[in-house]
């Protein structure tokens, strides 16, 4: 057993856990935070996406003991206009992948703002507008079997646009 303290959604949470417990299982089964979902437990679907010190990670592929002293944000700790944009644009159907999509989108917007390129970014591209193609590429680690992709992209565009203007001005 290993003792760790993880700061989750702004609160220090102490855990005494076997080292093989994933961050996802620790959140869902030991801290009662069931917002992050388990879709595959293999890092293939993105439903478990949370923010670790602001960066998006697949919490099913992370060991909880690695996050001692780190700051984790789950959907329960998110309060962002993106959530309302998802509702307005019908960016979900069953809702199971949604917490992961939203956390991933927040991490992705921050990455883009920091100038991180993606596979579809041209080498000489100026940092600026987040095109639809860029969003789709950068969000491809989050599967939605109901097929709400169009709505998700529109929701992200809606909240991203004000930020892009800020960057370009």
């Amino acid at each position, binding site marked *: 057993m290993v003792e760790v303290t993880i700061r989750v959604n702004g609160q220090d949470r102490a855990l005494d856990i076997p080292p093989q417990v994933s961050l996802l*299982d620790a959140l869902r089964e030991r801290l009662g935070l069931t917002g992050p979902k388990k879709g595959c437990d293999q890092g293939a679907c993105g439903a478990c996406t949370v923010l670790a010190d602001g960066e998006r990670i697949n919490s099913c592929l992370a060991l909880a003991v690695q996050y001692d002293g780190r700051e984790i944000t789950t959907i329960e700790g998110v309060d962002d206009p993106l959530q309302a944009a998802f509702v307005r644009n019908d960016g979900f159907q069953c809702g199971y992948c949604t917490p992961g999509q939203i956390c991933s989108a927040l991490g992705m917007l921050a990455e883009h703002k920091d100038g991180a390129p993606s596979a579809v970014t041209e080498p000489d591209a100026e940092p600026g507008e987040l095109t639809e193609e860029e969003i789709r590429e950068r969000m491809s680690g989050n599967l939605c079997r109901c097929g709400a992709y169009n709505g*998700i992209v529109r929701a992200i565009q809606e909240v991203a646009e004000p930020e892009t203007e800020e960057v370009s001005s």
Partner: protein
Amino acid sequence: MTAVEQRGKAVGAPVDRVDGVAKTTGTAQFSAEHAYPGLAYAVVVHSSISRGQIAAIDTAEASAIPGVLKVITHENAPPMKPAPKQSMVNLSTIVSASSVNYLQTNEIHWDGQPVAVVVAQTSDAAKEAAALVDVSYRPAESFVDFAAGVPSAPLVKGNAFIPTGGKKGDAEAALAAAAVKVEARYTTPPYNHNAIEPHSTTAVWDGDRLTVHDATQGIDWFRTHIAMRFGVPAANVRVIAPYVGGGFGGKGFVWPGTLLAVLAARAVGRPVRLTLTREGVYRTVGGRTPSVQQVALGSTVDGKLTALVHKSVARVGRTGGQSEPITSQSRHLYAAENMLLEQRAVEQDILPTSSMRAPGESIGSFALESAVDELAVSLGMDPIELRMLNEPERDPLEGKPFAHRMLREAYAEGARRFGWSARSPEPRSTKDGRWLVGTGVASAFHPLMLFSANVTVRVSADGSVLVRCAMQEMGMGSATVQAQIAADALGVPVESVRVEYGDSALPAAPLAGGSLQTASVAASVLEVCAKARASLESLAKKAGAATGSSPQEVLAKAGVPFVEAAVGSDTRFGKVAGQLKMMRRLLRDRRYVRAATGAHFCEVRVDQDTGETRVSRWTSVFDVGRVINPKTAGSQLRGGIIMGIGMALAEETLFDPRTGRIMNAGLGEYHVPVHADIPPIDVSWIGDPDPTMPLGLLGVGEVGITGVAAAVANAVFHATGKRVRDLPITLDKLVP
């Protein structure tokens, strides 16, 4: 209906989902997310052979893991009753996925069948111990290779509601004599539903009373089935499923994980949660059958169809399965003078196949609609023109009238939106850099039934309305659309209506399948609201309320706290009456052919060197009657199209033909479409109500996927000149 139209504002409006906040803030609780004191975790151990017996099972090492409560095998499991025989008299029997009575026998019927369940205090202990259960087998010879089973597959027996074949005139003679003909063999691979929520059950016994949180598409039949298997009255079982993380048919039957969670909870005397691993979903929840299809079309030189032959072979497991009505759309789409339709299925030692989104039409339309495109090419005719030339006035096979059919209008509108007239018909004639660009069309077709639902409504003096019905929500927007319907039927704002659902303690609803839930529940919501209005009107008269008073004003004036009304009942008598009503409805509905239809337009870009295929544009126009909520209906139709694009280009469940084991049981190796694969999908509808349906609505859950794979394959042919008849259209099939 006219009154509703006059009064209504909510029906037809793009209302946001009522559960949107819960789903975007993480408060929506799915079936693996309910906390219970003393909750234990169960993990399934799967068979590694496809047929034979368990020779010995050693649980000592697994039991020694700290935290393990019990390793349950066929040697120590509590009793469970065998699955009932399927019967049309008791429809709950059809949710039985397999005849195997898990952990009650040492017989193995498929690779992956559960052979043990480990229950522990934590999920990590259960997982670790499950890997240590040591099973040895006496394998028997198994029959698992689909290709080897195709030649000897027998004809499928149909029933009154799902036809399996058909014959008109002498199609084979007409084909032989036809001026122009095409004949080809098409294949589709096995597919899996892959709802992102894996099947999960939390089971809690309290004496002989049971509470089950389960990801189910059919609460009522599920409850009856579970009660029967565990020998308790149905009234003792409560099924709670307000949120189901996607189903697509995969959660319509009772699969082993559910039964084993309930069994394990009984064995350890504690609440038990059993969540299948993703691999466990593949290995214990059946997917779609593979198919081999033969389609032959004969026509005059002008394109009038003289012969239509469609023959299919599917497979089922030896212990159960669905062979899908693969020739279904071929009965209804074209006015061919002579027709021959035939369905066969082979039984193999694999897990039972199950229904997956538009069973039958999804894969059947791939073959038929590809063949029609091939005929258009042979005739040198536009594929839409060929379809319109053969568009029937009445059902071509049985001569029944169509309840509603506006496929012509759908094609005309789709062609306009997509810009079809600009198309050059010559294959491989459009290039954009290294991309070969092509376009294709195909028809969508999905038949619709109406079941019966029990609903109650309460209109309160504070202006609130409560609609109660144990229907399911797995992304369709069920509560949202029924609130819209009730609001208009009662003449109240939609915000004042709350819908309770997803709980067997509520009045029983049919399963969410066959695209029938919304219409079936809507029929009862309209009926129950009419009853409530009648009560309100007589109350208004008695109390002398002014004409045109709102329900709230009437109740205030009368000094009555609320009025209630009910449709159907959950008593034994009420259930029988409900079933009779449904049967009457189904028989009445057999007088005509009722279906949702649509026209798909697809543009693909194929890399001329690598064969990489991208869908770059999509337009679909549907005839789905009246649309209650354009936002949620649009999403469902898009979702179907996207699943169809996956089916066309990437998805495939790979069974090892020697062992029957699924070789790609994971989302890393079974490729469902991702964000990058999906362009903006332009979806619209004609909007004309179907006269045989409540409010004129036709279910939209399944029609979207039908025809999609053919539209993609036809576009790929137009782009490259290569006709791919074997799905999925992967690049190895396109490289020069």
